[in-house]
């Protein structure tokens, strides 16, 4: 009964989103305000019914209703309840339902928090998002129905969730990532609505900005969690593989980063309007492309649940409609919204333009590397794979190129600036950073390393720019606390995000350069010293978990005769599927991680293949990404966005809406 209820709710949601896509849009065409005003209620209705549908599927999982096909294939009565819940999106059908649910959250959020928008604008934005919802709801209903039953022949128990997905990180990674992915649909909807109305102005950018920032922040956090999960769960200590599916989430992030910055220019200066619209379309198209790559099974990856050509074709057609339609609209309408505002070569506008070009080129090179194997395969040229060396060779120099401009960014002025001013503000901090960059790597256990020095230089340069800017702000205030209190949330968001970026640079380079990794054959009693840490293999144990049995290896780690940590790595065999999984043991710290993972037993005398890692500063990367995400979220508390809402409300109450 419950699955049928869920199925029915999903059908109602589809019906309502169809209405949402058609009625308000027709209203905005015909000038019918009653039709336009239906949009927020319909949006909330879609959200309610998607919520009911999702709750029904979750209930089926929690109640072990193995007559539902996805439950039977992805859950098991022994599975701990929290993983039964996360198993809802640990499969193709359920993760698509999550996609739709999150889209409906965004719909409801826009409907609730944008009451201050002109009625026509809000109607158009919600209608565009409604159309996207129609696409995905029909995808879910017609090609991947999560409520399909296995009748007759209900299995007595389920197949279990893939053990790799039985992890706390995986409970929140997909929802966060989808919040980001799908969040760009809001920026997209605002862009398309503005094109439909032919009015792109600072107000449009101001409406669109907080939504874009939040989506970007969620995407940052989602990608960070994915990387962290890969690090401790996949059992080989890597944190980024340039896997096609990682790239699928990374490309919208790169385009989104460009969008966040170009929106700033559009809001503050009324420039780059057409460009910003194009970026919004681009970012959302990449989200859709990512969904296609992941969901169609054309790629070899952890995330490819199952291959089904019909599903791939559906998303491909949908992608073509969205991209083709929005670009056609852009071609027809964009010339009407072109702006002519001058700025000099040395100005904040130029620096942000550099940001945009770098991020766009980075997106395109990643896109190229990701699609190259598909392209060659389609042309019958053979099955290629493009490995991490390609992406590193292209991506790292691009980011390095970006940083010099990023340091100047905060102190630069709009419209017109001078290099004398930049020089006077940054010469001394720059010099200090240069000295630090040479000095700091000497303090590392492994000694001086030129790449680490360069990373410190780049990261320090970013921080130096922020510091120089804050000094100027301080000078304009009466006292230091007053200077702190006077700055806006937008400003602090920027500072946090940029500092986070600096931390990511230091973390990635230090861990890539200084890591020590060793795969060994070890017996209980053996010791191995790595970067000054002595790993002693104490004993092997047998461990019993709720739904698995495991061999465990206990290691005590010491340094200079002092006990540092006890690490217990496991090799688990899950009872339902019999699949084997490595559970690494990690002693984490701000400056170094110690990592032990078990391979397979070697020989007959109790020896194991053991992987030992010493990873310095690897956590800076995730910490940095966390700071970027929080920075993005912080910006929405800016009073500027609220004030505009109040002003809008007073307009709508006192006079006729535009």
């Amino acid at each position: 009964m419950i699955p049928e209820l869920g199925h029915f709710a999903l059908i109602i949601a589809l019906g309502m989103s169809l209405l949402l896509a058609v009625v308000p849009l027709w209203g905005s065409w015909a000038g019918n305000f009653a039709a336009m005003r239906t949009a927020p209620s319909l949006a909330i209705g879609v959200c309610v019914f998607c919520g009911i549908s999702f709750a029904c599927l979750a209930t089926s999982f929690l109640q072990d209703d193995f007559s539902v096909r996805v439950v039977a294939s992805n859950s098991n009565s022994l599975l701990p309840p929290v993983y039964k819940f996360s198993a809802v999106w640990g499969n193709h059908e359920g993760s698509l339902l999550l996609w739709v649910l999150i889209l409906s959250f965004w719909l409801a959020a826009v409907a609730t928090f944008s009451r201050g928008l002109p009625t026509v604008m809000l109607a158009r934005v919600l209608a565009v998002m409604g159309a996207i919802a129609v696409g995905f709801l029909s995808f879910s209903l017609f090609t991947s129905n999560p409520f399909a039953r296995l009748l007759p022949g209900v299995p007595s128990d389920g197949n279990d969730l893939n053990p790799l997905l039985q992890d706390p990180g995986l409970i929140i990674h997909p929802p966060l990532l989808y919040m980001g992915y799908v969040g760009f649909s809001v920026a997209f909807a605002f862009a398309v609505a503005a094109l439909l109305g032919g009015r792109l102005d600072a107000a449009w950018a101001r409406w669109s900005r907080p939504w874009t920032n939040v989506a970007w922040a969620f995407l940052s956090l989602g990608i960070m969690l994915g990387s962290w999960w890969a690090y401790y769960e996949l059992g080989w200590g890597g944190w980024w593989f340039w896997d096609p599916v990682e790239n699928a989430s990374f490309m919208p992030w790169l385009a989104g980063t460009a969008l966040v910055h170009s929106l700033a220019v559009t809001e503050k200066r009324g420039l780059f309007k057409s460009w910003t619209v194009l970026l919004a379309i681009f970012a959302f198209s990449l989200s859709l492309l990512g969904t296609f790559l992941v969901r169609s099974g054309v790629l070899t990856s952890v995330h490819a649940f199952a291959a089904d050509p019909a599903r791939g074709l559906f998303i491909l057609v949908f992608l073509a409609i969205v991209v083709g339609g929005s670009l056609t609209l852009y071609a027809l309408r964009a010339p009407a919204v072109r702006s002519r505002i001058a700025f000099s070569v040395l100005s904040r506008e130029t620096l942000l333009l550099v940001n945009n070009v770098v991020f766009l080129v980075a997106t395109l090179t990643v896109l190229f590397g990701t699609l190259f194997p598909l392209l060659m395969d389609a042309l019958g040229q053979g099955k290629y794979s493009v490995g991490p060396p390609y992406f590193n060779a292209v991506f790292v120099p691009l980011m390095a190129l970006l940083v010099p401009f990023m340091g100047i960014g905060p102190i630069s002025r709009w419209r017109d600036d001078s290099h004398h001013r930049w020089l006077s503000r940054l010469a001394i901090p720059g010099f200090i950073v240069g000295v630090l960059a040479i000095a700091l790597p000497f303090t590392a256990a492994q000694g001086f390393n030129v790449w680490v020095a360069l990373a410190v230089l780049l990261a320090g340069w970013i921080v130096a720019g922020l510091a120089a800017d804050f000094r100027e702000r301080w000078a304009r205030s009466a006292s230091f606390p007053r200077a702190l209190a006077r700055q806006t949330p937008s400003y602090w968001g920027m500072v946090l995000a940029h500092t986070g970026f600096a931390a990511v640079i230091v973390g990635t380079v230090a861990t890539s350069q200084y890591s020590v990794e060793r795969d060994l054959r070890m017996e209980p009693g053996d010791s191995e010293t790595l970067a000054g840490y002595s790993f002693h293999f104490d004993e092997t144990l047998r461990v019993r978990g709720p739904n698995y049995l495991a061999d465990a290896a206990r290691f005590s780690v010491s340094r200079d005769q002092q006990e540092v940590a006890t690490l217990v790595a496991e090799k688990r065999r899950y009872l339902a599927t019999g699949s084997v999984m490595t559970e690494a043991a990690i002693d984490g710290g701000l400056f170094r991680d110690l990592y032990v993972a078990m391979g397979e037993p070697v020989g007959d005398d109790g020896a194991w293949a053991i992987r030992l890692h010493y990873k310095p500063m690897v956590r800076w990367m995730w910490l940095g990404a966390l700071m970027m995400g929080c920075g993005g979220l912080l910006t929405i508390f800016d009073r500027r966005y609220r004030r505009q809402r109040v002003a809008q409300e007073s307009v709508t109450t006192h006079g006729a809406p535009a």
Partner: protein
Amino acid sequence: MAMHPARRQRLWIVLSIVVFSSAAVGLATYALRGNINLFYPPKAVAAGEAPLDTQIRVGGMVVDGSVKRADDSLRVQFTVTDYAATVEVVYEGILPDLFAEGEGVVASGRLDANGMLRADEVLAKHDENYMPPEVAEALEQGASVDVQPGALGEKTL
């Protein structure tokens, strides 16, 4: 040269974008040349179509009973088949969790003069039901040419 400031500015922007993107394209092409590798099914390797001492990928099923481990190191040797031909693979290191005899695998490395693949990376499938597409295709083609797959491994497609 008298040029309208707005035009000159636009020229600068366009020029820098052109220079910058061509640099990026150059970089990408250069990086791509050394870092892509082609997939060869065992049949193609046996026929001598795969280049020696070049990074390639070979995939298929691990033949039952072919996995041999050294006692004193992490060296492991196994045979990969597409049911039409086989390739010997040597690897030193930790194999992925889902590596097993009779299961699909992709090894990347270089072929030596004896036709043995010296692998520096071995990838197995990520979950029970999933088969890397290139392996599935290679097995399909291999099997259509040759005999019963059951002869080589108990698990068949």
